[in-house]
């Protein structure tokens, strides 16, 4: 690169990367954030001060060697930069896209207050994409076979992290997935306009090349029980996620046109229903879509619905914009794409036509009262504020509980009152010997990055047990 800025030059403009135009992207499922080109990446990398104290790295849940990889990007050695990231995380193209960096690494960047933080997430993503597209990625070497066998249940971020770590340490790993694609929420939940599927497939394929075995269409708890897996494997990791949709609890939820966010997103993201009839799975949204909830899943649902071409998509949230749990970037994107937000509003009744299809939604207004147990101000229903919204379909995105199938079919597995598996802090051990768990099945609906962090921690504990002759 000619006229390369000297490093460090922190005062260069903080670059957030290019984005697809809102008008154009409403009509497609292509990625919204277009990221950096090489020149933009090198220029952004030039801003990094290379702090000796590395506050960014300490804040990263999987402790990616941030100043070192950013320096390698600056030196335009992208293969080495990718390898540097691989030392602690095998999923940079995924994390670089879906991790909320503003609350982790970038929040702690020393440049943040004065100049804006180094765009670490965008640089991580650029490194992974560039290295992938240019064939610069070689799977990391694995230690000699230890003869120990590990089963990972679920193929979402938690299990993938466990599989990656344990395989590198020489253990034989088999991943069991109930669906026909691997990746868990990375495949069925997060839309392609935030996470292209070739990225997920590439990172899963890399684990395959390292020797991890992947079996699809196996619902553990039904097709195979944890007790059966325990007979054939030295250790079992349960990363089955939080895939149990929370119902709205309003009358009329059985009407056609009423979807859980899981169903709606699975139809589009996993089954490709947006390409019906080219793909066989249909969807029904009608002219007016209502989405209930305020998290990333609600934003994903609303933005997916918008791309199916209805007249309107309205998102109902019972608190105010200040309390929205979704990432600020996703809320901005949703608004740019034409999603309408109705705050302090909750649906109380769903009404249908004679064919049993949703027709309108009875709503009430709320006001914020005193803080509840979660510390957020509780929404309080206001009398005489009922009004109706015409709606052809409604997506319920108010949260998910832990998948219950394994808990119901595994005697002796301790769970909390929400059905989450109870684990020992730090070691991920469950109440059953040799059985570990992590990610959303322990935490309830959390984030991809916390699931990966859980997986890494569990892998360390499992390795220790396996190496000490333990396991079974």
């Amino acid at each position, binding site marked *: 690169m000619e006229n390369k800025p000297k490093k460090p030059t922190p005062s260069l403009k903080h670059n957030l990367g290019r984005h697809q135009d809102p008008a154009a992207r409403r009509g497609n499922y292509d990625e919204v954030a277009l990221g950096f080109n090489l020149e933009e990446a090198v220029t952004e990398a030039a801003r990094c001060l290379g702090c000796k104290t590395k506050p960014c790295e300490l804040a990263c849940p999987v402790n990616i060697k941030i100043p070192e990889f950013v320096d390698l990007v600056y030196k335009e050695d992208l293969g080495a930069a990718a390898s540097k990231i691989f030392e602690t995380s095998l999923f940079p193209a995924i994390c670089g896209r879906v991790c909320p960096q503003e609350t982790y690494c970038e929040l702690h960047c020393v440049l943040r207050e004065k100049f804006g933080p180094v765009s670490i997430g965008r640089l991580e993503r650029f490194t992974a994409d560039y290295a992938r597209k240019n064939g610069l990625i070689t799977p990391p070497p694995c230690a000699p076979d230890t003869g120990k066998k590990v089963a990972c249940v679920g193929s979402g971020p938690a299990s993938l992290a466990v599989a990656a770590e344990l395989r590198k340490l020489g253990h034989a790993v088999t991943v069991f997935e109930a669906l*026909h694609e691997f990746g868990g929420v990375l495949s069925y939940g997060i839309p392609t306009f935030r996470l292209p599927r070739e990225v997920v497939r590439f990172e899963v394929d890399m684990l395959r090349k390292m020797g991890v075995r992947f079996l699809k*269409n196996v619902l553990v708890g*039904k*097709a195979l029980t944890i007790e059966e897996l325990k007979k054939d494997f030295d250790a079992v990791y349960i990363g089955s996620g939080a895939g149990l949709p929370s119902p709205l609890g309003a009358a009329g939820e*059985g009407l*056609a*046109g009423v979807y859980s966010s899981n169903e709606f997103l699975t139809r589009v993201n996993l089954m490709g229903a947006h390409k019906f009839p080219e793909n*066989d799975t*249909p969807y029904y949204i009608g002219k007016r879509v209502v989405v209930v909830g305020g998290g990333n899943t609600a934003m994903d649902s609303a933005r997916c619905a918008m791309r199916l071409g209805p007249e309107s998509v309205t998102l109902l949230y019972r608190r105010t914009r200040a309390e929205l749990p979704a990432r600020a970037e996703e809320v901005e994107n949703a608004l740019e794409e034409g999603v309408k937000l109705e705050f302090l509003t909750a649906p109380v009744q769903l009404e249908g036509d004679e064919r049993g299809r949703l027709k309108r939604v009875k709503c009430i207004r709320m006001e914020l009262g005193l803080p509840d147990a979660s510390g957020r101000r509780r929404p309080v229903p206001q009398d005489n504020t009922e009004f109706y919204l015409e709606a052809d379909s409604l997506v319920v995105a108010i949260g998910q509980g832990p998948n219950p199938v394994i808990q119901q079919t595994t005697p002796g597995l301790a769970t909390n009152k929400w059905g989450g598996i109870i684990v020992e802090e730090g070691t991920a051990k469950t109440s059953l010997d040799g059985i570990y768990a992590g990610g959303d099945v322990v935490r309830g609906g959390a984030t991809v990055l916390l699931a990966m962090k859980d997986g890494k921690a569990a892998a360390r504990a499992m390795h220790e047990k396996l190496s000490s002759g333990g396991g079974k």
Partner: protein
Amino acid sequence: MSHDIYSSEGLYRIVEKTDLSPTVSKHVIYAPLIAVKAKAGHFVILRSREGGERIPVTLVDWSPENGTVTVIIQSIGKSTTEMNAFKQGESFLDVAGPLGTPVEIKNWGTVLGVGGGVGIAELYPIARAFKEAGNEVVSILGARSKDLLILQDEMASLGRVLVTTDDGSAGRKGLVTDAMKELYAAGEKIDAIFTIGPIVMMKFVAEASRPHGTPTFASLNPIMLDGTGMCGGCRVEIAGKPKFACVDGPMFDAHQTNFDQLTKRTAAYRESEKESLERYTKDHKCRIGLH
């Protein structure tokens, strides 16, 4: 012969295919993990190819020795028509299972099985399990016409069989509920009823048995997507509460089932289903004479 249930080699290959009628085919599929675990009342989710949809189908039979499971599919839309066009030796892309909660098999005394159309195939393994558990099994098999009756001999091997057809081309002309009412009128002992078939048929079976207080169970067939309990697309209302048919069922107390809601929910994609089938039959010369 032993099968490695952790291997994906040869999975989902159709080792035997038989056409039972112009629109109904039997597929014997290599799926050893499912074969060793299958119980009466379990189902599988099938997917034919990339871009295909996920379709729930009840298991009719299974052989742990051969590592195979058997399903019977009726061509009623695009995906089922396409699946029935598969030849022996070809493979399904995905077969997930066994799914659902198996039917509780116990000794009721006399069990009446009521099957309609392709539901007879799904009734068969359940009736067989009740027979093996010491029950006396009586069956009522209904179909639109003679050529849509399947597994009559297999059902007859389990006990007495009464046949009804809409057009009178086999057995007695009329509905399965007519035969039920006759059994009740004759004072026959019926301790439990298990019914599988079209929703409207199961609804009327439930209504026919309700005044007699006979425990009655129906295998519900809502639209399913994942079949693993993560989406709730298959939710049905049982005793006023939502249940997921894919994990809690598919067999439920028929007297507590909201059949009207089930009927409306299964019609949700009717236009899309029609469009998909029309597009498919236009592109493919129709082999089975549906059009």
